């Protein structure tokens, strides 16, 4: 079953927001940042990346702040930071729950 967009972030969504958390980046830089941060485990396809950028833009999680040639630079909004933090808290809770479950 597919996840309903933006209610719970998928892995790709989470990493795109993470990449923009501390820097404003263009599409290529986001893809490179995600690959670098995950050690190559997560590679964003161009279709996925542009679907996400469009969807995040509509939901005002990110905004376009600069246009240089054909490259557009994106900036994460306060709402985007909130969505990222919420997901991070949820994931931390999941890991904590799993750790408690694994403890003797």
């Amino acid at each position, binding site marked *: 079953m*597919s*996840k309903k967009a933006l209610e719970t972030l998928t892995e*790709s969504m989470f990493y795109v927001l993470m990449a923009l958390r501390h820097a404003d980046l263009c*599409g290529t830089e986001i893809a490179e940042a995600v690959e670098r941060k995950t050690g190559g485990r997560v590679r964003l*396809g*161009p*279709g*996925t990346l542009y679907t*996400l950028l469009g969807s995040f833009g509509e939901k005002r999680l990110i905004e376009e702040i600069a246009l240089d040639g*054909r490259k557009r630079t994106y900036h994460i909004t306060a709402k985007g930071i909130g969505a990222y933090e919420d997901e991070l808290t949820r994931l931390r809770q999941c890991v904590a729950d799993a750790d408690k479950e694994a403890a003797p």
Partner: protein
Amino acid sequence: MIKYIPYRSWEPDAVETWLTDQAAKGWELVDITLHFGQFRRTAPKRVRYRLDRQVLGRLTRAEEEYLALCKESGWDFVCNLGDCYVLRTEDENAVEIQSDPALYLEGLEKALRGKIGWSIFILILLGFTIAGLAMFFRRDGIAYRLVELGFLSFVNQFVFCLAAALLFPLEIVTVIRIKKRIKDGTVDRHFHRSPRAARLRAVLVPLLILTLILDVVHPGYSNIHRGDSLSDEVIAALPFATLRDIDPAGAAKIAAQSREPHSELKLVLYDYCTYRNLPMPAYYSVSETIDTWKKAGVNQYETVSRTGCAFYYRKLWSENLARDYLSDQLTFHADGCDYETIAYPGFDEVWYGLDADSNQSLWLRRGDTLLEVYSLDSADLREYLDIFAEKLS
């Protein structure tokens, strides 16, 4: 080489697999126009094709940026299919265009929503066609009249109905299968559809479109001329005698009146219509009459006098149909009018009638051809049978 692409953009994996198979056979996609792919011959290759639905706007910076990122990721843009970008790579390690399975399935679901509208459209057309065909076989039904008058071609309708009837279940089954995949979360990028169904669709869809065009859009289906467009050349080309042949002075008077500005007390009807199908039947209607009116109250007029003739010419599908049609018409018009049959060489049937208002009717049948004449003039139509016989073809 032009090939019809037998799958829709809303089942992208089927298109992708089909294009990949074509490349393996040595056919490389160059462009797509209206679902027909243009291919060029190459050596057989292992190529991955992907259809990616993006709302970027054609020739925008967003599109440029997207295609540049595709290129950097190892994907070459080929062309567009509907709202999808068709991309190709020979690099086995190139990252998937849609790398997030959840988003990929969500995209499939979105694409399918538009598809349901198409299925309903086909269902409605199918319903209309079946109803029309059912009525066709009922004498005097609407479809019977339409076909007889030449608005619709029976063969065209039958082919459309057959194509729609076969295509509709095929589309529904495909939609159900895709919905099941979305529900199950199955991401299978090498999803093979039935080649038999693809071949069937490759024949049915163009057939459906062709019949629709013939039925609705074809500009040669009917010609309607009004007023002054009833020129001497048009009249001379008619396959039957008109007022000009039997009463040249009366016809000249009407022609002169038709060129004068109309007043509220005079109405000149001077029409000529044809409806024709390919290749049959044909229907012509010519009305050469003048009505004079007088005011009988606010916005009310009454006819003072009428003169002239109306002609209806029909060439039907068969002699039997023409005979039945004439029989129906005589029954329909029999109320208040006595018909007499006249034996006349050159016609299979001749019927003449005179009603209480001294209006004359004449019915002439030769094989599958009928001429129906209504005269508001005092001249006896029976005196012109030789002129009608000579010109009727």
